[in-house]
């Protein structure tokens, strides 16, 4: 358990209690002092009257003796009256009451009862002495012996004569009266001095109590102040008070942040550490006390801008502060993260838009166009270009340049002479003039420059480089470099994909050996021609004695013969003519807009060119052609059979010739498709036609033209 005394309580209100205690002390002491004075005054009241009456007793005692002597001598006197006054006065002095007046002397006096043992004893003694004296006086006057008189006051006067005894008693009475007066005076003195002592004591006591309480109050306040100070100073929050004359208070955390002393920050000093763009807001806070929430940038000890989330509290009306209190917290990390996220989001949005655009570009040219538009989005003014290698990957070609700005015109020729391509990562050059800058940046028409080079690659294979230049010494910002990197990565991916796709397309539609269309492609194109109803001639070609050629010289020679034949055909045919390797050494030629007789001329030209060709290591060979045209049949199967018939006739007739096929009068079954496609030999027993069937992609409807 924590003891109460040890708990940390900066907000305890002990100070208020101490102040109350001080006031109570003063009130108590004031009341005591007043009460003392009152009681002392009350005690001293009537003291003068008592003293006067007590003093009068002395005179009366003397007078009584004289009057007794006068009366004793037979003269006119009234000792009895004096004795009566003496007795009444003595009684009044002792117990209070009325002291009678003395004729011609004074008036009746009311007295309080005597207080204090000593005084009462003295007044009692006086009363006894007065009584003895009166008895003695009467005895003198009646001439009785004094020895029989009472001695109530313990006087030992038995052996004195009555008159002397009377005088002694009068003297004793007088004496005790005098001493009673002294006792009264003494007690008054004592009262006064006691009063003074008490008052002084009370004064000192009150002062001491108040001083101690005040000291306790100060100690408490100081402790509380220390608590608050340590609370305020150990806080990482930044506290600044701005008043009319500028900065009036800075917490220790501010001092630590900016690395200056307090006095350097007071007045206008603080503002110098605030970002110039934020000073206006700060001025507003000073003059208007708001806005309540603001963000400030403060330069720290190492010259870096720190972002602060600040809160302004307007305490200008508070006369103890007369300023605006700014509580701030360093939010730099958060702000940086936000900025990074924003940039990331912008990049991401750029990236996703770019990726969508590239997805729609299915050809290289379309890709280059997207790249140019993306360049504009990245920067309107920065020169940029995309250099891409052709399929041989040996030469770099400029395929895209930023439309708004001139091309940076990098003189690089080969991918492998580009440093960025070699490194495989983006390279940023601050200046073309430094030692370690790329040499290709020097001596550009625009003079010295900065540059960014981002390699473009696909699946680890370099395709080219995305290149941009900027002002010398001021390379493009990181965000732009990030965008360029995104652009380069996505362009590389897309170009790679497009190229792979084109290659696949080509592979699918052409014959790998000769580069001619394959059978399927021709069928597709021929179907289009038939659908349009355009006239055409159709021929089937076959190399003569190809099996012997293969057997004698090997397959490679056979392949070369096939390629040569294809080249010769392509050299003769028009652009819109179709030629396909049907399979093996058999080819199909479609000649749009020609009839079978015109076709023969073209085919004979092919044969002629083949004869003139220099096949190099390939032995000379010939080819036979069977031909027909679209007027000779109603379906492609019929036309193929007719052309095939022509070819058969040509072969029969001794080869190396062109023969027009005669349409068959036999009714054709629709199974001709199966004949063409199935591995089973057709009726005409022409196995070579069927050897050429493309088994890779069996397509039963390949010849379906209806």
């Amino acid at each position, binding site marked *: 358990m924590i003891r109460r005394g040890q708990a940390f309580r900066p907000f305890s209100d002990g100070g208020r209690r101490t102040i109350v205690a001080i006031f109570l002390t003063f009130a108590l002491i004031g009341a005591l002092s007043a009460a003392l004075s009152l009681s002392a005054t009350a005690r001293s009241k009537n003291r003068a009257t008592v003293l006067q009456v007590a003093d009068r007793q002395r005179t009366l005692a003397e007078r009584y003796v004289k009057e007794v002597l006068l009366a004793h001598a037979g003269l006119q006197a009234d000792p009895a009256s004096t004795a009566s006054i003496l007795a009444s006065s003595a009684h009044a002095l002792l117990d209070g009451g009325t002291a009678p007046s003395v004729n011609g002397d004074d008036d009746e006096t009311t007295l309080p009862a005597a207080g204090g043992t000593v005084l009462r004893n*003295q007044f009692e003694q006086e009363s006894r002495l007065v009584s003895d004296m009166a008895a003695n006086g009467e005895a003198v006057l009646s001439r009785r012996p004094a020895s029989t008189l009472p001695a109530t006051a313990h006087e030992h006067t038995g052996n004195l004569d009555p008159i002397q005894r009377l005088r002694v008693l009068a003297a004793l009475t007088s004496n005790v009266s005098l*001493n009673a007066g002294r006792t009264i005076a003494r007690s008054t003195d004592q009262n006064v001095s006691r009063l003074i002592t008490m008052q002084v004591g009370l004064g000192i006591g009150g002062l001491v109590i108040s001083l101690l309480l005040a000291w306790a109050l100060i100690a408490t306040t100081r402790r509380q102040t220390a608590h608050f100070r340590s609370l305020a100073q150990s806080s990482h929050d930044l506290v600044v008070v701005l008043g009319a004359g500028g900065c009036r208070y800075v917490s220790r955390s501010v001092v630590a942040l900016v690395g200056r002393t307090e006095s350097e920050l007071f007045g206008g000093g603080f503002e110098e550490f605030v970002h110039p763009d934020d000073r206006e807001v700060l001025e507003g806070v000073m003059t208007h006390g708001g806005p309540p929430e603001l963000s400030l940038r403060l330069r720290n000890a190492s010259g870096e801008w720190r972002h602060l989330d600040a809160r302004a509290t307007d305490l200008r009306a508070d006369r103890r502060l007369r300023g605006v209190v700014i509580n701030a917290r360093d939010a730099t990390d958060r702000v940086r993260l936000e900025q990074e996220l924003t940039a990331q989001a912008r990049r991401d949005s750029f990236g996703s838009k770019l990726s969508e655009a590239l997805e729609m570009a299915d050809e290289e040219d379309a890709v280059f166009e997207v790249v140019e538009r993306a360049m504009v989005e990245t920067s309107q003014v920065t020169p940029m270009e995309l250099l891409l290698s052709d399929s041989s990957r040996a030469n770099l070609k400029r395929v895209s340049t930023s439309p708004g700005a001139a091309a940076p015109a990098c003189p690089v020729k080969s991918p492998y002479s580009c440093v960025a391509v070699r490194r495989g990562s983006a390279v940023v050059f601050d200046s073309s003039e430094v030692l370690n800058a790329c040499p290709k940046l020097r001596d550009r028409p625009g003079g010295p420059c900065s540059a960014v080079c981002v390699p473009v690659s696909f699946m680890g294979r370099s395709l080219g480089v995305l290149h941009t230049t900027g002002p010398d010494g001021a390379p493009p910002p990181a965000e732009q470099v990030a965008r360029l990197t995104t652009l380069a990565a996505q362009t590389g991916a897309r170009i790679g994909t497009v190229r792979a796709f084109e290659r696949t397309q080509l592979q699918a539609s052409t014959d790998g050996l000769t580069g001619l269309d394959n059978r399927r492609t021709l069928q597709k194109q021929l179907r289009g021609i038939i659908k349009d109803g355009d006239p055409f001639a159709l021929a089937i070609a076959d190399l003569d004695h190809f099996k012997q050629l293969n057997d004698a010289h090997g397959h490679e020679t056979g392949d070369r013969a096939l390629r040569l034949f294809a080249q010769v055909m392509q050299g003769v045919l028009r652009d819109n003519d179709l030629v396909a390797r049907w399979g093996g050494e058999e080819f199909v030629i479609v000649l749009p807009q020609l009839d079978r007789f015109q076709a023969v001329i073209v085919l004979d030209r092919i044969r002629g060119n083949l004869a003139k060709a220099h096949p190099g290591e390939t032995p000379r060979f010939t080819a036979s052609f069977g031909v027909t045209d679209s007027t000779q049949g109603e379906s492609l199967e019929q036309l193929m059979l007719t052309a095939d018939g022509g070819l058969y006739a040509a072969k029969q007739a001794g080869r190396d010739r062109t023969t027009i096929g005669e349409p068959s009068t036999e009714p054709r079954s629709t199974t001709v498709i199966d004949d063409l496609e199935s591995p089973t030999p057709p009726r005409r027993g022409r196995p070579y036609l069927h050897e050429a069937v493309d088994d890779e992609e069996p397509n039963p409807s390949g010849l379906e033209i209806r």
Partner: protein
Amino acid sequence: MGGSPQILLRKTLVVLATAPVVLLVAACGSTAPVKPANAAIAAVTEGDFAITAPTQLKAGNVVLRVHNNGPDEHELIVVRVRDPRLPLRADGFTVDEEAIQRSEPGSLVPGQPGSTRDLRINLKPGRYVLLCNMAGHYLGGMHSNLVVTQ
């Protein structure tokens, strides 16, 4: 100084409450007689109107511890005499102090009722009278004879 403000306050109040008492006690410092060394102490009681005192004492330094029983004030005069009857003044009821002055080894001025005072005197062998010579007190009975022996 440790402790919370409350404890401090409480301590302070305790100190301050006792302070006036201490001050008063100090102010009323005792005046009780101290026993003197090498002196006999003789008790003398005065009162209205008699003196009670030893009738015989050894010669030498004596402290007469004089208590006034009251109610009146009383003085004490010690007179060495040949004749215990002392001469009176012309008024007929006070002792003629001038006549006995040369044989008066010591005296105390009138003291208040209830007080106790010491009279330090050197007594030589002889006859003495102790008396109070306030008006009428001697004749009223306030005298006592004393014989000092060797």
